[in-house]
């Protein structure tokens, strides 16, 4: 401890030379490539959307931000209310047929890059409710990156799922599979609204930007 302080003092004064200087710098500099750093940043500061549907909502997002199962230690404590400011949506609870278009619209309003976690059995596959009123799995109408089983899953299970999502983000997978849901970009593009036929230059620019992000 004392030796570290002495070395720091020497460094500040400009007294470290040669091998000492090299060793000092090596211990403090990390060499990586830009993508890894970018993904590390993304994974460790996710902004979840405050979105709870039913029973799983009591376990998350309410219970995992409380003191016992602290979500803040993973960097995700800033829950945003507006989908434009969030980059992760946790579907906690059963998705009924009346709610499905609302959820899809919320997902479309989120800006790229975005991820979706389907928490619990009901949003992953309809759960125990195999009837006329529940959509049998949210991945029937929107792309889901991670499914967490349980009814309701324990907060520890949600946190484990969360760390898996972080590892997935750091691995930077190709989001091309989301085209199956027509879920590239935000809502104007996905839903065929009035702004969804852009001009040629806008298309090129967007395509180029997407290549850049994906590469």
């Amino acid at each position: 401890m004392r030796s570290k302080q002495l070395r720091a003092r020497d460094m500040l004064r400009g007294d470290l030379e040669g091998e000492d200087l090299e060793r000092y710098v090596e211990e403090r500099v990390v060499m990586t490539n830009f993508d890894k750093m970018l993904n590390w940043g993304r994974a460790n500061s996710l902004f979840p959307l405050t979105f709870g549907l039913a029973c799983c909502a009591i376990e998350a997002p309410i219970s995992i931000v409380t003191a016992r199962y602290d979500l803040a230690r993973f960097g995700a404590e800033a829950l945003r209310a507006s989908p434009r400011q969030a980059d992760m949506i946790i579907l906690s609870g059963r998705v009924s047929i009346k709610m499905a278009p609302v959820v899809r619209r919320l997902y479309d309003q989120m800006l790229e890059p975005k991820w979706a976690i389907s928490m619990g059995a009901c949003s992953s596959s309809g759960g125990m409710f195999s009837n006329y009123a529940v959509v049998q799995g949210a991945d029937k109408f929107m792309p889901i990156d991670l499914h967490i089983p349980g009814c309701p899953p324990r907060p520890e299970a949600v946190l484990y799922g969360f760390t898996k999502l972080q590892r997935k983000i750091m691995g930077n997978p190709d989001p091309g599979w989301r085209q199956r849901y027509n879920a590239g970009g935000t809502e104007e593009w996905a839903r065929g609204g009035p702004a969804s036929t852009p001009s040629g230059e806008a298309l090129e620019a967007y395509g180029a930007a997407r290549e850049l992000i994906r590469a």
Partner: protein
Amino acid sequence: MAEKVLVDDRATEVMTVNIGPHHPATHGVLRLIVDLEGEVVRDLKPVIGYVHTGIEKSCEDKSYWKVIPFVERMDYVSYFFQMEAYCGAVERLVGLEIPERAKYLRVIFLELNRIHSHLVWLGTTALDLGAISMLWYCFRERDKILDLFEMATGQRMHTRYFQVGGVIEDIPIGFEKKLREFVDDMPTRVEQYQALLDRNEIFLSRTKDVGIVSRERLLELGVTGPLLRAAGEPWDLRKAFDYLCYPEMDFKIPVGTVGDGYDRYRVRLAEMVESTRIVKQALEGLPEGPHIADDRKYVLPPRSELPTSMESLIHHFKLVTEGFRVEPGEVYYAIESPRGELGCFVLADGSSKPSRVHFRDPSFVNLQAFKDMSIGGYVADMIASLGMLDPILGGVDR
């Protein structure tokens, strides 16, 4: 829809605003279509059904004991109450008496669930009103209750603990000690919450005289529970109808005077203290005995008997594959849940599946009072009234 209102000689238009179903303050997916004149609410229309799960229809397809996990997931914060309403209704249909120990155990878990529900309410409502630190304190206690549930039943939420005839398992060793620690600790915690909020000026000005509806109007609208008690009507189904072992418990019912948001808050906090007293009395008076009825036609025999007794094996087989049959008839059984009167209607048609299961959910009926509470007030007061109304959308939509 433009109205001219002569306030300072200015004309104001009425603006229709859609709040929800996704909104930071709505307790679940409630959508409100509000007609606003400036900041004053002129008309309000709740649109519900965003978490409608068709539970009542699903129940018609399952045998009687398989319905229990479905029915718990309606009002997802007070799950033991739904189990009790349904199991009580089926027990009355079948004519089954539950043993004393089961009654006391049921009351212990019901009152613990009531405290849990009020804690969740207090944490989230205070969060809506801006007192963010209450969330952390309330959920600290809530985690202790969930630890107790997990110790006895294996699950934190949706425990499937009550069965037709009693409770599924006896409490483990060490549960009484942990419960006693919790019960001794809880009154001081409630005092801490009161110290934080009771005299807080901001909380007072946001809840005093906000959302007042007269007692007669509440009764007309069918509102029950803490909302009715805060308006001055001492009506509690635990005292009115004798069910389980409540007649042997000594507890009071907190009643308010004015019926505004502050009274509702005080009533619920006092109910938490009373529930702690009930749990303590039930724990001390817990009798020995079986934890479930021993009528093998309706109740699974204990596993230890299965290898030796042929009859038990046959009963077990029949109960697990087909379930028990109930003579045709119908019954309506109501209990006092943390939100009001929770009633369960079961119609049996002689087969092993119920023909109709309907729940009279308190949040569904209480929501009709929301319009009366908010009209003429400000938008912010509407949000405060919504918090004090304590709707749980799983129960509203079923």
